[in-house]
């Protein structure tokens, strides 16, 4: 059985010579481990690779080197019939790079099968975002492409560090990959203020049961255009009285009646012995009648239709002005530029907690 696996590995190595050659250009211990694996010396390969992981060089290695070392370590462990150790190495590979797919031409079927099984049960995503995004008034979005190790549930949030969630961007399943868009607004529809945020991707086999959290630091700078102040309502001093005061009505009544009484009675007081003419009653009736009509027209408390209309027109004009300013402010707010800087991802594994 061992011989069969080794043969398959050798065939894979021979078939993909250039790839192997490239792999050998990594760190020395990793290269020696890979050569040992290709020589079907799984024990030696395991030894070289574990020595490398224990070295200081491994902690500062690139993702490519670490992934390659882990893949060969897992494959060597499989050849050594250490399935659990192989699974552990492959699980680290999947978490390190969820997009990674093992080359079925390079590795033996039992290696690729185990890797596939590990990938299926390990729920992780990789996120690809532009380092710098600018959102303007043209309806642009902050875009992110998510790559899943296998089908599972994710929830993507934008949140303040140790603060409340500003917006849940996505909550649902992910298959192979998923494109997400965020318009820079919180759950109320308002543009989020400048500051530090995280794009947080919570992964798990079941909804709302995250086993892995990936956080992308997000520095947001919003450049707003000043909005206009709403116009002040018309001052009360400009408001015309809508109901008649008592003064004009009383003046009309008193003035008309007094003049009428004067025309009727005054002659009797000024010239009591004279033969007075009845014509004075016509003037008395005219003046008194005019006073009564004037009082009726200026009846205290009655509505002044013209003033009311003028006030309504003034109020309507003000409201129209407010609407114009509000529309202008909406335009200015929409025109605000938002600059988003995305940092390096931080991953937290919750299964060990």
């Amino acid at each position, binding site marked *: 059985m061992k011989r069969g696996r080794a043969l398959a590995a050798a065939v894979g190595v021979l078939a993909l010579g250039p790839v192997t050659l490239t792999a050998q250009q990594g760190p020395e211990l990793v290269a020696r481990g890979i050569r040992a694996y290709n020589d079907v010396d799984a024990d030696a390969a395991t030894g070289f690779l574990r020595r490398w992981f224990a070295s200081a060089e491994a902690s500062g290695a690139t993702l490519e080197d670490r992934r390659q070392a882990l893949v060969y370590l897992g494959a060597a462990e499989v050849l050594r019939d250490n399935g659990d150790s192989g699974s552990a190495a492959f699980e680290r590979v999947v978490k390190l790079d969820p997009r990674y797919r093992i080359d079925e031409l390079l590795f033996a079927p039992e290696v690729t099968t185990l890797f596939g099984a590990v990938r299926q049960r390990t729920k992780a995503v990789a996120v690809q975002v532009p380092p710098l995004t600018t959102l303007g008034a043209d309806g642009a979005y902050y875009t992110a492409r998510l790559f899943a190790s296998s089908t599972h549930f994710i929830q993507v949030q934008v949140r303040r560090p140790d603060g409340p969630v500003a917006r849940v961007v996505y909550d649902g399943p992910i298959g192979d990959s998923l494109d997400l868009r965020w318009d820079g607004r919180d759950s109320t529809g308002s543009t989020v203020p400048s500051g530090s945020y995280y794009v947080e991707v919570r992964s798990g086999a079941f909804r709302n049961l995250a086993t892995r959290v990936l956080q992308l630091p997000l520095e947001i700078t919003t450049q707003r255009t000043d909005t206009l102040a709403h116009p002040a309502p018309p001052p009360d001093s400009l408001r015309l009285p809508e109901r008649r005061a008592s003064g004009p009505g009383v003046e009309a009544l008193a003035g008309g009646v007094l003049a009428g009484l004067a025309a009727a009675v005054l002659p009797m007081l000024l010239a*009591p012995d004279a033969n007075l003419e009845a014509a004075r009653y016509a003037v008395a009736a005219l003046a008194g009648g005019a006073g009564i009509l004037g009082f009726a027209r200026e009846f205290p408390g009655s509505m002044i239709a013209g003033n009311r209309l003028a006030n309504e027109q003034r109020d309507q004009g003000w409201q129209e002005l407010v609407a114009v300013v509000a529309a202008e402010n909406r335009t200015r707010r929409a025109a605000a530029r938002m600059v988003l800087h995305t940092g390096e991802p931080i991953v937290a594994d919750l299964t060990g907690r």
Partner: protein
Amino acid sequence: MKRVAIATVVAVLGAGAAVPGRAPAQAPPGAGVSAGASAVWEESTVGTAVIRRTGVLLDGRARASVWRLDLDLGYRQGSLSAASVANQRTLVEGDAMLGVRLTRWIKLEGGPRVRAYVTPTATERWLMWEGRARLAAHVRGPSVQSYVVLARAFSANLRPALPFGQAQSGEAGISVRLGRSPLWSQVGYWISQASVSGGQRVETLQGLSVKFVLSPK
């Protein structure tokens, strides 16, 4: 009754003079003229004899205003006919009044008034120094105004010489502005009574007047 009327006139004049009142808004200098006619009824009592005359007086006035002061000049003239042709006479009257507008609704005036009764054989002149109070109110906005005028003569000089008794007069009516023009129409009733000392002779004039006033205010 007569004393009550006189007391009223004096009280109005006194109140107007004593109360400073609120000055109306300072207005630019202005002027106005008016022309009209009055249907006149005259009752002339001499002793126990009463002569009644009627006629039409033509009336013309001019006014100049500066600040709160008004200078009014008036003239009216007309023939008064009686039942007997021998009793017909012509009435000519002129006055010059200097007035002050204390408020929008009250104006006090004073000045001389000369009245002449002209017959073919003689002319009799009454020169009276008079004080007047004019009250006005807006009846339907400023375009329709009612007014009352009360006047009292404080002294008089008659020719041929007669001892002056008393004289008082009053007028009430209504003024209507014609549209938005500076032209006003005015309808009023006026009465004037003058007597010599002792009441042996009393001249009473009543009139129903119609005027047109050209005034920017």
